[in-house]
């Protein structure tokens, strides 16, 4: 059954804006309006403060762990217009890189799939999206998509590394020809898909359905099926599930998951891409699952504040 395995008291001095565990689920990174990022070792239900990272000059909005093949790397973004990349070396966390190329609050950071190397997308209220690629020797290559979203970009999320039209034969033995893609959401109420072609980032698709600012987007992890799935949520309280079956990636269908009464701030996919966690201004977390016939249903309601879980009904699929 669903059970609380750990409750971490972060001792942040102000409200928390993001919490995320690393690849293996052994460490927890949190960030807060108190301008700090904290890292806890949460193995075996414990909580040991590993690092208290100070360096931002404003509230820190989001954190993101890089794939462990690159080492222990964490990125954070803040109101102070900076993105800081932190790295653990010999047990000590230090700044690895500080990116100051945005002119307004940086709202979202997301590492790309490890197949592309150490690459990150950042979305900012200045409307631009930056792509930072580590090229070795402390060097970062920076590409910037200006005016990606008018007014501001609120969220970015990478597509899993899959080969486009995966059913088409490719010369085997060569490195698969992955295409870098990500999705972004912004204050223009749009969800936009971006694709790298010949080293240049191009707008691939523009998905319209929301009637207010898009607050978060999440590209579902792939389990190897040719369908791509994206979730988006907005100030308008709506959550949409976008799917695309065609290998060229041109036709996206929107399905309304639910209309909530308050802003929806965050969507997150489970590792197999069949459960979506939705959270928003109502201080609640709900889990949604796609049934066999393609309908989405709420399977739980983790009501907050009480710190308790109201029944998560285990609609297990083992029954045949």
């Amino acid at each position, binding site marked *: 059954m669903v059970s609380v395995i750990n409750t971490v008291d972060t001792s942040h001095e102000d409200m928390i804006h993001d919490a995320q565990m690393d690849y293996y689920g052994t460490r927890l990174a949190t960030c807060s309006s108190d301008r700090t990022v904290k890292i806890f070792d949460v193995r075996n239900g414990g909580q040991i403060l590993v690092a208290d990272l100070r360096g931002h000059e404003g509230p820190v909005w989001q954190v993101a762990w890089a794939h462990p093949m690159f080492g222990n790397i964490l990125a954070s973004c803040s109101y102070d217009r900076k993105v800081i990349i932190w790295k653990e070396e010999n047990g000590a966390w230090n700044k690895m890189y500080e990116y100051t190329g945005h002119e307004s609050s940086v709202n979202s950071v997301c590492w790309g799939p490890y197949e592309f190397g150490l690459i990150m997308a950042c979305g900012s209220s200045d409307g631009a999206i930056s792509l930072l690629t580590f090229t070795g020797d402390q060097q970062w290559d920076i590409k910037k998509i200006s005016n990606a979203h008018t007014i501001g970009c609120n969220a970015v999320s990478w597509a899993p590394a899959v080969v486009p039209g995966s059913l088409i034969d490719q010369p*085997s033995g060569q490195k698969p020809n992955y295409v870098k893609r990500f999705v972004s959401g912004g204050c223009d109420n749009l969800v936009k898909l971006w694709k790298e072609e010949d080293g240049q980032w191009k707008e691939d698709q523009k998905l319209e359905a929301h009637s207010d600012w898009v607050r978060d987007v999440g590209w579902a992890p792939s389990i190897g099926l040719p369908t791509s799935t994206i979730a988006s949520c907005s*100030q308008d309280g709506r959550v949409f599930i976008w799917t695309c079956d065609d290998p060229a990636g041109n036709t996206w269908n929107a399905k309304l998951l639910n209309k909530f009464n308050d802003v929806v701030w965050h969507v997150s996919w489970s590792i197999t891409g069949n459960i979506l966690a939705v959270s928003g201004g109502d201080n609640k977390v709900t889990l949604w699952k796609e049934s066999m016939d393609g309908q989405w249903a709420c399977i739980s309601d983790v009501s907050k504040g009480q710190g308790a879980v109201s029944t998560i009904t285990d609609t*297990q699929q083992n029954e045949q």
Partner: protein
Amino acid sequence: MAARWSSENVVVEFRDAQATTMSVDCLGYQAVLSGRRFLYIVNLEAPSEPPRKISRQSKWDVGTVQWNPHKSESHVFAASSNQRVDLYSWRDGCGEVHTSLQGHTRVISDLDWSWFEPEFLVTSSVDTYIYIWDTRDTRKPTVALSAVAGASQVKWNRKNQNLLASSHDGDVRIWDKRKPNTAAEYVAAHLSKIHGLDWHPDNEFILATSSQDNSVRFWDYRQPRKYLNILSCQVPVWKARYTPFSNGLVTVMVPQLRRENSLLLWSTLDLNSPVHAFVGHDDVVLEFQWRPQKEGSKDYQLVTWSRDQTLRIWKVDPQLQKLCVSDMVEDLMEGISLNEELEKSSQEPEIQHSVGPTAGNLQDQSISLNSGGRQDSVVGSGLPQTLQQEFSLVNLQIRNVNVEMDAVNCSCVVSAHFGSHQVHLVVKFPAQYPNNAAPTFQFVSPTTIPSDMRIKIQKILTDTSLQKVKRNQNCLEPCVRQLVSCLESDMTQDDGPATGPFVLSNPVTPALPAFPRVTNTYGSYQDANIPFPRTSGARFCGTGCLVYFTRPITMHRSVPPTEPTPRSLSALSAYHSGVLTPMKMRSESQSTLRLYSGSPTRSDKDTVSISSFYYKERKSRRFKTKREGTDYSNRPIKLAGKVIIQEISCLLPVHKALGESYILNMNDIQEMCQKNAAAALLVGRRDVAKVWALASAATSQDLSPDPDPDTETPWARHPFGRHLLETLLDHYSHMSDVQTLAMLCSVFRAQPPPQDSYSLYGHHPSRSSMFPPPHSRYPSYTSSSVTSGSCSSTSDSINTTTWNTGRDPEHPNPWGESSPDDYRYGNPCYTDPREREREQHDMNKRLLDPANTLQFDDFKKCYGEILYRWRLREKRADVLKFASCPPEPHKGIEFGVYCCNCRSQARGTVCAVCKHLTFQCAICHVAVRGSSNFCLSCGHGGHTSHMMDWFRRQDECPTGCGCHCLLQSTF
């Protein structure tokens, strides 16, 4: 606290007034506040005196109230209430309605007294009529202007007694009261509703409109097609009115969701940024009016009424007025040419003001002041102004810091209290400042910090200021912030051990937070495009965890739950009143008035934060405000909730237990299926157990296909063959059960790796030599990275796919393996039709459609990723072995070998030329098939286990070549 250079000098709260609007009389003695039950007359000379009341009986709120602007009638005011206008007279401390004007059939939206005829009043209504009333004959309006559309605003022209303007949605109409049938001019001013309309005080033709479309536009109505100028805002503008002194404009924004209030003063000559923000009101500013200038005073006073139920009087002194006259010479020139007319008129004050009986002395003052201001700015455009301006705009609402600014002497005193320390710092600005001339910093008593620290701080401040003034930028604010951060970091170090419940094992030294580059303050009006921060969230992490955090239970939204959370960070601008202690909670009246409550604990924290939006319960648990030196990590009220990690793997279709217990043993498929079925039962996946039983049946030896296509239809063609399997795969795809999918695909490998798999595609035939043959196709690359005891790191490297479970080629799997020359569909020409038939048969006899091979590989790859997260790397390797395309090529160093048999160059473990294993162990002289180690220096090596044994005791090469392998090959 922070030195503010014009601040309100009067704040009075009328908690029960519930007044919707306000008006200041033409003498500036009193203001009327219109509540539903009473009208309150506030004596502006002594505003804190209890106001006089006039009771009224109406179920309607007062829409508009306005005093008669003529001195002779200064005791009269008009108040509209639904369809009626009541005229009150106020004499000797009591007032009463003496007349009512009735004629409108719908609610009255606005009213305005004529500037020229004390008896004339105009009213506008939703009923589409605009009436001009002569208050001496109240039976019916003297003039009725038919507008067809309902009007929201109506205003008399200040210079022409016949002209008036009205607004209808986004349009403005200019009327001549002598021609009531049609409007004299139409201006399609805005795309959305106009909230405010104001005629220029000195120019007959110019007016300003403020609208829902987030802009203020300036018009010459003679050119209705093009606005003269535009002020673009991020939010709708409620009112924009000219100031009585020249070139100024005051705006009130329509707060998004009623939370932000921005009362801003602008210079119409430079609309890029406001000249001043009047900060203090906690809620929407409902009305603002200028109080006529007092005799002999150069100050103006702005009277404001807000929904926070306070009346404030703000002093606008000549310095601030001067800022509305742009300080730049170019701008000034432009301004002069732009306002030629204004200039002219200001040269002839007599004419101008004889017509405007409104407080003539007021305008006289303003004009003399104007010209004076202008001269000032031309003459001394340099220093005092800029410093003055810096002082006025500087934002120094910092905890424990006070800055006293003295613009006349070009200096300021910064005093700060940190813990037990006090700092007093005198900053002197040179005449050329900020043009490459840095101020000086001097500590004065009673500064208590040690002298070494003084020196350090002084140096930091000098550096900071130099950096700024080199670019001719102001440096006061950065310097003060730098000072604070120095002091703060010093204090934190002081009480380091006591900072929190956790002791840092490797404390990260708190970096000195540099001054913010951000010039606007957090959560201010400029942050309108920054999304409102998340205060709760949930994320799936790792494989089976849900991490979530929420607002602490003690923090409540201070708005009714029906109102959505604001979208933008600028909603916090309501909290920028750090100086004022917030008013007591008005919990009783809150619901009716939809008041926005400030947080009761805000006073202990001067910086605005997201937490200000939420108010904290437990007011009763009043904590004693600790004296200075409080370690503020011990806030009594927790602003951060707990982060909860929840185990949700039972909701997932994949199981770690199965990942551990599943086996892939192609030598005995039956047994493998049974074991896996048992494992599936253990975790409660009965469905999967059945699938394993089916797999066992389908892989039975009895059903193995005959190599001869003519004997029988292969089992794969049977409905229980490929079709059944595809149905199963489809089912588990829908369930996202990548674990079952990958396992099924591995068992029924669609594409067995033929010996010569790469020529299959007809592409690079030579490639086969570059890659080892199938059963060891993924050589243990680690062999290269663990050379001679050197590197044993990279435990996290994803490429460490070590295994030694190469299948025995003697036992080919009847379902997968095929002979090397079985098929070559890369080659289109068949010499023999039988060959074609055989190939067809070969495709048909497979249970998995070979056309979908890559799809099946993707399942395995994705499952492999999950296994990796579970840290089951060997299981991952087991699965990936069955993928038809190799994992990503190794990106590190790859070692070539000279084949020990034929001496040709080879890669991997088998020589492409002679097909022998390439590398011989230096110790046992047997060819190495699995993992090997060798010395980079002499090239000798062998089985990893042998090498490890050897070098545990020796440091020379086992071949006796004399190489000190352990020493040589460390890199």
